[in-house]
């Protein structure tokens, strides 16, 4: 099987499936093919150069909605995990925020967003040009998370700043060259910016929405139709691989594996620190310890929740990428396939959620019913703005945002 990927730590389950023999045990050989852009991942899946691919969680949704320049409809039956994203601002900008608002460095993500708002106001008064912020793709968790965080701080991403795209491996250089003032990207790029002394991490994905899906396994419908049995075995292999990746005892080997130039090609020591959730957030050495900064398996992280596909859709509507219609809603649901996940893993000892949808971001430790009768306790699940998302009221949710595309 040919699998396309972009070199990022969130591809861990794919690498472990091949390197640790989980795929072989299922009689599959994975040929992992490195690529340079999400557009390529999309197109090479469409034109059969890949059978399945490492994808951004909004990509299957965008593809079903016909968004983007080659909207080839694909779907996901398996999420590759959560976390790993961070928002990094240039050190100059952060120091300016400290000067203006007196931040001492211990503030949370929301306080940082508000401090940024104050700086933006001041820059406007001084007639300075708008800040430029980068993410990796128009239909990416990074785009929606960066915008969500800005808006939570009272900043309108469409009018107060410039949002642009910079490919992940170029983010740190672009920041060093002062072409961009901030970016949102997955590991390891944020910490590389901090270690190079050019960036300050001000928010992580978990600060914005802990349960947010990050990368997913994107599958071509034609391939899946011809190979349902192989797809099923691949899900079993990935399930085992993801569990292996989450085990702290394996983090050392996983860091070595991902550090290989054939995969991510970053220093294993840094990868290990990221896997442990030990982030250096400021070049002055300030650390932040986060339990499960990268989560590959726990808390049903691999389950493709329909409610999460709907949340992604709500953000696409919020920022004017698409409209809200019932016909579109049906297509959004075709993008995430919990039914295939369940069929593949039924009968295993695994705890599988019994519902396809839930209210997202309920604000407390949410409990998810499972088929086995046990409850899956998820950790604290709240959005940074404190509002919960009812998947059955997308319209109401979107119109409740003070800042959105007009």
């Amino acid at each position, binding site marked *: 099987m040919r699998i396309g990927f972009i070199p990022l730590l969130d591809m861990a389950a794919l690498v472990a499936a091949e390197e640790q023999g989980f795929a072989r045990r299922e009689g599959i050989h994975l040929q992992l093919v490195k690529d*340079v*852009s999400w557009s390529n991942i999309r*197109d090479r899946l469409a034109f059969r150069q890949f059978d399945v691919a490492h994808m951004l969680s909004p990509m299957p949704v965008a593809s079903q909605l016909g968004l983007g*320049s*080659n909207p080839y409809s694909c779907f996901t039956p398996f999420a590759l995990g959560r976390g790993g994203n961070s928002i990094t601002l240039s050190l100059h900008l952060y120091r300016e925020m400290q000067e203006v608002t007196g931040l001492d460095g211990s503030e949370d993500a929301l306080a940082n967003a508000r401090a940024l708002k104050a700086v933006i106001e001041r820059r406007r008064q001084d007639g300075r040009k708008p800040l430029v912020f980068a993410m*990796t793709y128009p239909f990416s968790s990074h785009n929606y998370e960066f915008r969500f965080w800005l808006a939570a701080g009272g900043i309108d991403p469409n009018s107060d700043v410039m949002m*642009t*795209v910079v*490919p992940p491996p170029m983010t740190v250089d672009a920041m060093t060259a002062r072409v961009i003032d901030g970016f949102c990207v997955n590991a390891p790029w944020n910490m590389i910016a901090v270690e190079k002394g050019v960036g300050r991490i001000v928010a992580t994905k978990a600060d914005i929405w802990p349960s947010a899906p990050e990368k997913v396994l994107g599958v071509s419908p034609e391939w899946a139709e011809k190979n349902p049995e192989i797809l099923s075995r691949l899900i079993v292999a990935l399930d085992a691989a993801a569990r292996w990746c989450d085990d702290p005892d394996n983090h050392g080997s996983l860091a070595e594996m991902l550090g290989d130039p054939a995969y991510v090609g970053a220093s294993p020591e840094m990868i290990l620190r990221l896997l442990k959730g030990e982030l250096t957030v400021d070049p002055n050495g300030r650390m932040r310890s986060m339990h499960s900064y990268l989560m590959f398996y726990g808390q049903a992280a691999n389950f493709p929740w329909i409610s999460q596909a709907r949340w992604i859709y709500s953000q696409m509507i919020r920022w004017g990428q698409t409209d809200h219609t019932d016909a579109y809603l049906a297509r959004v649901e075709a993008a995430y396939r919990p039914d295939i996940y369940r069929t593949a893993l039924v009968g295993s000892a695994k705890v599988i959620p019994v519902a396809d949808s839930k209210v997202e971001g309920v604000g407390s430790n949410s409990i998810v019913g499972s088929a086995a009768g046990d409850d899956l306790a998820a950790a604290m699940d709240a959005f940074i703005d404190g509002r919960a998302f009812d998947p059955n009221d997308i319209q109401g949710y979107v119109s409740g945002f003070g800042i959105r595309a007009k």
Partner: protein
Amino acid sequence: MTKGTQTGQRPLRVAIIEENSVRAAILLDGLREAGVADVEVIDTMTHMLRRLSTVDPDVIIIGIENPSRDVLEQMFQVSKLVSRPVAMFVDRSDHGMIQAAVEAGVSAYVVDGLRKERVKAIVDMAVSRFNAFDRLQRELVATRNELASRKIIERAKGILMRTRQLSEEEAYALLRQTAMNEKRKLVDIAQSVVTAASLLEK
């Protein structure tokens, strides 16, 4: 449709996003041959968006190994950067062509309303030029390898002549005979001789 005929009237303007100057030249040449004179080469990501909106091309050609493709995707989303809608040239009725394009490593973005056959000619040309460039690269590598092999064989011959008091012809014959006996390449045998000699010299 009326818009299509209108755009069909004026000469096509093509932008090539390409950092490799040799490949850019090959493409440029191909476009000129195809009668497209209005071509702009953008060779760096810096200010790519600004330059594209100034050039306002009908067709954008970019290699798929160029990470800037994702930057273009965003540009097409933000309508204020381009005056006309742009889509990747995907003609479902001609799956073979687009397949060939992806295999050759080229993608083309085309403004809405352009007549298909005009664009197809350009994309076909880009595909064949990308393939030609690939061939060129391979030939270059092959030539380099051949040169390197010849040097190794020369050195091995020299070593044999010196250590075993052979003439040049005898040294070469010995290498060839050994290669035939061991069913290996001449250059591999020569390499072994060179390596062995360097070990012994130390």
